[in-house]
């Protein structure tokens, strides 16, 4: 119900996820703040425990939130893919907000580093500066909207090709192509090569 500040139970959150999967947009409206709050809480807890400049494991974070909020035995793999897709988008916002926050800057700041899965390497180093990536991804999205969504899902949520295809209602072949192209584009943009990043 709108305006309610009560935290829904695992059963309720799971039902919302399933309802959204069946096309109920109101369920998504209720689900989004719950997932975002949880991601926010977990990300901040991780960052507070560690020294500034340490590396954040995005995929592990989303996984932890998933296990805390969802009754995993009650959902299909499609439901799971949708959850991870939404979390990936929220994760991007949570991390960039955090990197810009005064609180973080006060503690010594530095770049917020995110760790990439071996299979998801976007940059030569294993860690990428989140703000630089966010900025490059925004430029990329202006030219290639669908392709940038593939990056968001794979990079921030750790979605597999099949899951990303389900979330975007496209084919795995398209996701693979988009991912390959996006990596090449972003790699060039992040490496600061000359040209306008096109």
């Amino acid at each position: 119900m709108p305006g309610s500040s009560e935290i829904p139970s695992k059963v309720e959150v799971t039902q919302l996820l399933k309802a959204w999967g069946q096309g109920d947009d109101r369920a998504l409206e209720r689900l989004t703040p719950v997932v975002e709050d949880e991601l926010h809480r977990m990300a901040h807890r991780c960052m507070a425990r560690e020294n500034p400049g340490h590396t954040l494991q995005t995929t592990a974070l989303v996984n932890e939130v998933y296990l805390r909020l969802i009754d995993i035995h009650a959902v299909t793999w499609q439901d799971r893919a949708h959850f991870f897709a939404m979390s990936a988008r929220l994760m991007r916002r949570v991390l960039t907000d955090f990197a810009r926050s005064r609180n973080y800057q006060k503690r010594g700041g530095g770049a917020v580093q995110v760790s990439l899965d071996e299979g998801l390497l976007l940059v030569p180093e294993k860690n990428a500066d989140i703000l630089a990536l966010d900025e490059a991804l925004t430029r990329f999205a202006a030219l290639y909207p669908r392709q940038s969504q593939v990056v968001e899902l794979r990079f921030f949520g750790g979605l597999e090709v099949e899951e990303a295809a389900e979330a975007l209602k496209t084919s795995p072949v398209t996701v693979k192509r988009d991912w390959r192209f996006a990596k090449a584009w972003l790699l060039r943009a992040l490496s600061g090569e000359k040209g306008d990043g096109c």
Partner: protein
Amino acid sequence: MDAERARRLEELYHSALEHEQGGRAAFLRGACGSDPVLKT
């Protein structure tokens, strides 16, 4: 870069991957024509 150029760049990227390493540069020289933006 406009939308049409962006679309062409993506197509070129995928086509270039289908060419063997050796023939790739020649393929791109031909395909980019005189477009300076695509060439960079």
